């Protein structure tokens, strides 16, 4: 049993069919790259996993437990974290509020529960330090940060609550070279800790360097499932653009 199992998942937005029966699995400590053209359906597939969208058909399970019926909060509690492409930060709130959004630690005073801001600030600072992120100030609204700094906050939020699987949708899009290396190191660290990772990225060099497997999505279908050590840039590109003989061959290879 894999950590995450996606089976025959389909999704359409009104008349637009975005996903046609996609299969995907991720094991513990496995890094899977999810690549494909703009609009291939990568983000949509991942939002079905986190519960932001509801699937039309298919099944998704985490540790063998079906999750499609569960609300997003419940899935998060089970250990599914995602760094969204659009970051999904509350721009007027500070770093701690964003990292702990939806899971604020509380302490009890006279039987009532109040948000423990001191603990939030302390733990947020610790997490930011661990990531080696450089933020101007932890008690500033994150909307005043640069794109890369905001990305650090989004990453910190995903890693603070002992996730089982971390989905990263273009986590390096806004980052400078040094920070990109930081994220790639981080992914290797997560892998070493037995956490499953799905990396969505258009930077194929990064994907090739850090993943164990690469799944190519093409017009809502899993067009290829490649073992990273047995593939190269040419094969991945050809699967992404689709139709070529190499893509067909690669798909056969993966099935056989």
């Amino acid at each position, binding site marked *: 049993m894999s950590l995450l199992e996606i089976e025959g998942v389909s999704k359409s937005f009104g008349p637009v069919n975005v996903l046609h029966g996609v299969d995907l699995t991720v094991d513990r400590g496995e890094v899977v790259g999810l690549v494909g053209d703009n609009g291939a359906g990568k983000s949509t597939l991942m939002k079905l996993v*986190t519960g*932001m969208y509801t699937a039309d058909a298919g099944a998704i399970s985490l540790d063998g437990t079906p999750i499609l019926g569960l*609300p*997003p*909060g*419940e*899935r*998060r*509690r089970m250990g599914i974290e*995602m760094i*969204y492409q*659009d970051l*999904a*930060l*509350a*721009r*007027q*709130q500070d770093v701690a*509020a*964003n990292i702990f*959004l*939806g*899971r*604020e630690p*509380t302490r009890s005073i006279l039987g*009532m*529960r*109040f*948000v423990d*801001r001191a603990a939030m600030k302390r733990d947020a*600072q610790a997490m*930011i*330090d*661990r*990531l*080696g*992120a*450089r*933020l*101007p*100030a*932890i*008690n*500033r609204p994150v909307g005043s940060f640069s794109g890369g700094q905001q990305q650090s906050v989004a990453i910190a939020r995903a*890693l603070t609550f*002992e996730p089982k699987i971390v989905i990263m949708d273009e986590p390096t899009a806004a980052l400078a070279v040094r920070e990109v290396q*930081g994220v790639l190191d*981080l992914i290797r*660290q*997560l892998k070493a*800790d037995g*956490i499953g990772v799905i990396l969505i990225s258009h930077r194929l060099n990064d994907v090739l360097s850090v993943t164990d497997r690469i799944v190519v999505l093409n017009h809502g279908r899993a067009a290829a499932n490649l073992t990273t050590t047995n593939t190269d840039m040419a094969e991945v590109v050809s699967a992404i653009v689709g139709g070529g003989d190499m893509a067909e061959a690669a798909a056969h290879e993966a099935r056989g």
Partner: protein
Amino acid sequence: MTSIEPKSTAPKPSLWARAQLGSIEQLHIRLESLIVLFVLGATMAILSPFFLSVSNFMNILLATSTIGVLAIAATFVLSSGGLDLSLGSVLGLSGVVGAAVAVKLGAPTPIAVAACIGAGAAAGFVNGLIITRAFVPAFIVTLGMLGIARGLALVLSDGRVIYGLPQTMVYLGQGRPFGIPMPVIIFIATAIVTHILLAYTRYGRHTLAIGDNENAARTAGINVEWHRLSLYTLSGALAGLAGLLFATRINSGDPTAGITYELTAITAAIIGGTNLFGGRGSILGTMIGALIMGVLQNGLNLLAVQSYYQQMAIGSVLVLAVFIDQWQVRKESRV
């Protein structure tokens, strides 16, 4: 927890920077609104010899209490990115319901009070239900409720003021324990409780987060629809409480009570620093805003300015407050 190696420590902000950020932010008050309140008070004191007196101060607080409770309702809804235009009408409806239950049904005071606040909560619940389940914009739903609640108040009362509330109920509006008017006590108690709710509980934090970025709140696992529904219900209940204060103060249920009060309430909230588009808001700030409105009205009364002009003044203040806010935002984001 993952064992990520520490790499570098972000530079700590200087002590001065921390002190500066901490002091005002911790109180959730905008310095500007305090200055406005002070300048306004000083001006009124110069213009009218009656302004600076203990009894006038109590008058201001008394006049502020009804509007203040409504402004608290407006703060919750606005900071969540919503809007409640039905506040004044729901105030009127609640007062009529409370008075009718007490006078026409002869119910004991606690039941009449519960009916009053319950009527407001019910109207707010209907608002929230339509906004979150039928996806009609809050602007339209609460504008509709503005008409519906007012009409219902007139229907229930037959268009007439319901006089003769029981003495225990009137105490809530006219009693003066320790010389302090009951509405002022109820207003301040409400403000303290709601301040704690908004600033120090998960409910409050989530309210601001939803107003800031609804999608972020949703991805964080917050049930946005349920939260919004509860906020509109809370807003209605607070309008019901304001209706109770109003009705017990004038000792009657007036179906025309609270007309255009939403204007004053929303203005007070925005002057107090609530973001019109959500994500920011504090009850302490709103209290300052409500006091500014109270001082303004009181001062204009003392100067014998006709109430028609007062309406114009309040409307102008609202537009001016939003203008200044937007101007600052643009100034900050200018490169």
